[in-house]
């Protein structure tokens, strides 16, 4: 429902105000757009916020992703929550540094986080304390470096693993074509 030209975001403001009142300036909250709130929280405040949001009404733990800011040497963990009654997504994101910093597990708040944390551990190498089964998840007998990290060179790995000599030369005789939009690959 439009209110003088600006979509009325009653729920979002209400939630924003609540978070600010409870957590004060420890946590930065800003509404990105309708139905979407971003919360930047320091590492030690993430789990309390998750717990608070859960009892606030955000029952669905949609996703846990990890972004590898290799330049800043940081991993950004983003917890996506969603509440059906308010129809609002909350993205709680926190930064931990890349080299062997561990993150407390969120299993006891949201069980759904179980597999997401395993996947992130396998793909990025993030340690989650208190997680019962971190070990091998998707990749069987994977010995190398967690593959999703920016510093993992796939091409070199492929040449070494599948002993394909010059990967790019052999597979592509033609030079790279500039992309000319859909339906124009000729």
């Amino acid at each position, binding site marked *: 429902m439009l209110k003088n030209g600006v979509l009325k975001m009653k729920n979002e403001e209400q939630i924003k105000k609540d978070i600010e009142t409870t957590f004060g300036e420890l946590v930065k909250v800003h509404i990105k757009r309708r139905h979407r709130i971003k919360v930047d929280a320091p590492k030690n405040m993430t789990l309390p916020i998750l717990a608070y949001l859960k009892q606030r009404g955000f029952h669905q733990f949609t996703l846990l992703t990890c972004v590898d800011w290799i330049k800043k040497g940081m991993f950004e963990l983003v917890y996506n929550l969603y509440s059906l009654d308010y129809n609002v997504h909350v993205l709680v994101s926190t930064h931990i540094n890349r080299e062997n910093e561990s993150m407390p597990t969120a299993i006891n708040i949201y069980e759904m986080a179980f597999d997401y944390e395993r996947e992130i551990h396998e793909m990025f190498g993030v340690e989650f304390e208190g997680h019962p089964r971190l070990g091998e998840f998707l990749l069987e007998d994977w010995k190398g470096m967690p*593959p999703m990290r920016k510093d*993992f060179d796939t091409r070199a790995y*492929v040449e070494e693993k599948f002993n394909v000599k010059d990967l790019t030369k052999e597979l592509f005789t033609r030079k790279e074509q500039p992309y000319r939009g859909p339906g124009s690959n000729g």
Partner: protein
Amino acid sequence: MKLFNFSQSRSLWMMHFCTGCGAMEMPPTMTSRFDMERFGIIPMATPRQSDLLLITGYLTIKTLKRVVRAYEQMPTPRYVLGFGSCTINGGMYWDSYNVIKKLELYIPVDIYINGCMPRPEAIIDAFLKLREMIAKGEANAWKKYIENYEWYKKNQSEVFDVEKWSIKNEK
């Protein structure tokens, strides 16, 4: 021997290892539009009963182990049909750390069908081609697997630990 070759060519029992996107092409070929059964090809449930193995799409290392196991469980003479470009050279996953690039390094393949998922006509065409090869007695890729067994095993051992993932019965 000629009678067996003829009967083998006319009745190929297919085991369909549906990995990757090739699986979508099989239903039209089986059902009324293209009906492969008229060539005597029926989908079979287990490797023991089938003689034709369809690899329809890219094979990650994980699925390669299972494919090798299925292939070894099939009674000889057995034939392999590689669908799509992913089996030829890894297709669009050419630089993926997980997908194997050349199928014939690991199991002998009789016929490749190129195309990023060939249409049923191409599949039927491949089947007919395979029929003639069998009838003429040329399709003996399976013999290659038995003769240079170590070579195949060496290739496989590069990709995964063969010792752990192999059936230990006297061959």
